[in-house]
């Protein structure tokens, strides 16, 4: 024990600084960083495509790019952002780094599978980038048959192969997290002492494990049908295109919860820390996370209200979709109640987290519009839908990703980021985001369809607002990249617990040693034991 402790006083970053040691690392913290670097690059590609889209939409006629190129731009934006940024975003970076630390373990249960998952992810990403360089794909991220199987002349198969491969990295990450949370908790770390971030990772992992195989096999059926000209999706071949949509959304609706449930976990940690209050209704928050994950599997048909599924199926899916709003609302109310009578301070992570609550609420409430069978006929495939899901995915998931990155940056790197710049960027992102996407609710309600490069001139003003907001978002995302990299060298050294936060990850050094804890921690209190009054047992 003592000799081991001395030998590993060095942090996980310090030991063996060369390429080989990073590319063969089994340390969950290093793999988290490998993922962070990878998805940041991919976020850049997906973001560049979005910037081109917004530039092109400045004018009613598509002047910047051809219509074919426009189709490829929004397809690659969707594919990259969904599968190569949002799905892995919080779980593969912060989750990889934090899950073992938060449960008090030395590593994930299967470190080699964890490294394999990163290589699979990179392999899948390379396939997709190859397809992009070879000429792109024009099906949209949804690959709807029979366009994808029969008619599209773009690189559908290569992109689908990339997504297929990356899917296995999702499965391995999810499997690793579920097993780790079940079997690697430190002594005293009971299920209801787990931080809500761990609950959110657990629920997310269940979705990853149960939904991703369905996507993988569906894409395989689609790809083979494309190659051999026979299959079960194209009606001309005797297939059923609705079958593709059912199978696709059986994965892709739960995938929305893969993106936003981790964000809920991050927000719970940050809000509790910066108002010095335990999370209100902890158990209900944990149950709500599980309920969202469970209901998430039962609502896929709400993407198909106008696709020709039966009216009875539509009614049931509509009602179930309304049900999802119950646990979601429980979470919003409980975060708000956590703030009540707290000593609230407004550090950058807290600004991101508060922004998350507001934007998630708008995204959630507009989801109820779309869950209504009648209203959806009007709003389906308009910019209203685009705005709705960007409020959840960008306003929700990306805001929380940035908040979490700032919150745990001192733990990950051992350095503090510049607080003033960070607060400025948090506010800039919030303003830029609303300026980009709120006008899309209006223009969508007025009838502008999504995925069209041209629109009637009376919609131009809303599109100009939106593109102007997007330019603010570019700054909001690029500036943190600059100052976070700057802080690696010039930032102030971080103490073990700079936020005075609760949680096992703050009890070890910043950055942590390779084996996380010199001695296995023993947990004696509930999560979020902030303030003496609430916890007489302390």
């Amino acid at each position: 024990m003592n000799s081991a402790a001395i030998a590993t006083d060095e942090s996980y970053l310090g030991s063996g600084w060369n390429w080989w040691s990073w590319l063969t690392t089994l340390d969950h913290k290093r793999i988290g960083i490998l993922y962070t670097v990878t998805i940041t690059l991919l976020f850049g590609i997906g973001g560049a495509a979005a910037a081109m889209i917004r530039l092109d939409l400045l004018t009613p006629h598509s002047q910047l790019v051809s219509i074919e190129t426009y189709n490829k731009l929004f397809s690659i934006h969707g594919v990259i952002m969904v599968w190569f940024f949002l799905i892995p975003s919080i779980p593969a970076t912060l989750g990889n780094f934090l899950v073992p630390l938060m449960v008090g373990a030395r590593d994930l249960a299967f470190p080699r599978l964890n490294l394999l998952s990163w290589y699979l992810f990179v392999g899948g990403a390379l396939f997709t980038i190859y397809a992009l360089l070879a000429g792109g794909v024009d099906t949209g991220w949804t690959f709807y048959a029979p366009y994808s199987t029969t008619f599209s002349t773009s690189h559908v198969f290569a992109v689908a192969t990339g997504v297929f491969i990356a899917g296995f990295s999702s499965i391995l990450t999810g499997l690793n997290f579920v097993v780790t949370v079940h079997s690697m908790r430190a002594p005293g770390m009971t299920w209801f002492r787990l931080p809500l971030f761990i609950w959110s990772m657990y629920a997310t992992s269940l979705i990853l494990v149960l939904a991703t195989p369905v996507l993988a096999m569906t894409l395989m059926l689609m790809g083979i049908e494309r190659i051999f000209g026979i299959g079960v999706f194209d009606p001309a071949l005797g297939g059923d295109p609705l079958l593709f949509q059912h199978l696709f959304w059986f994965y892709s609706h739960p995938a929305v919860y893969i993106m936003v449930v981790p964000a809920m976990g991050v927000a719970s940690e940050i809000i509790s820390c910066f108002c010095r209050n335990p999370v209100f209704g902890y158990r209900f928050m944990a149950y709500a996370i599980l309920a969202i994950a469970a209901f998430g599997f039962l609502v896929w048909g709400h993407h198909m209200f106008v696709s020709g599924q039966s009216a009875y199926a539509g009614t049931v899916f509509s009602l179930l979709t309304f049900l999802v709003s119950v646990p979601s609302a429980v979470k919003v109310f409980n975060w708000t109640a956590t703030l009540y009578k707290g000593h609230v301070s407004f550090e950058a992570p807290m600004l991101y987290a508060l922004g998350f609550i507001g934007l998630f609420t708008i995204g959630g409430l507009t989801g109820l519009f779309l869950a209504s069978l009648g209203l959806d006929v009007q709003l389906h495939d308009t910019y209203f839908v685009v705005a709705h899901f960007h409020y959840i995915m960008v306003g929700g998931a990306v805001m929380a990703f940035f908040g979490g990155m700032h919150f745990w940056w001192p733990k990950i790197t051992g350095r503090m980021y510049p607080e003033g710049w960070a607060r400025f960027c948090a506010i800039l992102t919030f303003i830029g985001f609303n300026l980009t996407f709120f006008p899309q609710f209006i223009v969508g309600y007025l009838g502008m369809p999504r995925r069209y490069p041209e629109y009637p001139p009376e919609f131009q003003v809303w599109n100009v607002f939106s593109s102007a907001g997007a330019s603010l978002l570019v700054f909001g995302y690029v500036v943190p990249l600059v100052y976070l990299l700057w802080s690696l060298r010039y930032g102030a050294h971080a103490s073990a617990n700079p936020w005075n936060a609760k949680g096992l990850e703050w009890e070890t050094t910043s950055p942590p040693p390779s084996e996380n804890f010199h001695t296995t921690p023993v947990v004696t209190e509930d999560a979020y034991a902030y303030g003496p009054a609430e916890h007489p047992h302390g």
Partner: protein
Amino acid sequence: MADAAAALHPQFDDADQQRTAANLGIWIFLATEILFFGVLFAAYAITRVRFPEAFAAGSRLTNLPLAGINTAVLVTSSLTMALGVHAAQHGARRALVGWLSLTVALGCAFLAIKAVEYRIDYLEHLVPSLNFRFAGPQADQVELFFYMYFFITGVHALHVLIGIGCIATIAVMASRNSFSRAYFTPVDVTGLYWHLVDVIWLFVFPVLYLISRSS
């Protein structure tokens, strides 16, 4: 060496924790496999409901004797695998190596018989988009049946192949004395995977070969 402590990975506190983690891990993996095949069964079922006569006609063209023999071969291989796990539990190294080798042999026999069956299918012009010919009504839908037949049995055969590789690896490890009464988790885990591949076949066989065959 077959020492439990030597086989303990550093992230675990004790062998018990490691065994629990490995078992939970394989069960979750098996769940993903069921969903993976579930898509194929769902697609098959939906298409079959739409074209019942064509699918029944397709079923009648499949090779029941070879598939029947293959079912027996695969079920027997599950028995030999289970006996292998039993031998591992009792630390009987030679018996373990023997049962695992027999399982590998049976798995290879399954693939060989399947290959013969595919060849006969090819000679009978039953391979979709390659040489498919069917004289009766609804030829396109019968071709769709054979598309699903090749897809499902092909994905299953791939799983058998992976299983053979895993069991062969475990057999080599066993012959090098890597397992003991206290540590044989890889044998257990591989066994569970092999049984799942077997169970999936027990659904593939009736669904493709037997339903409405005599009608």
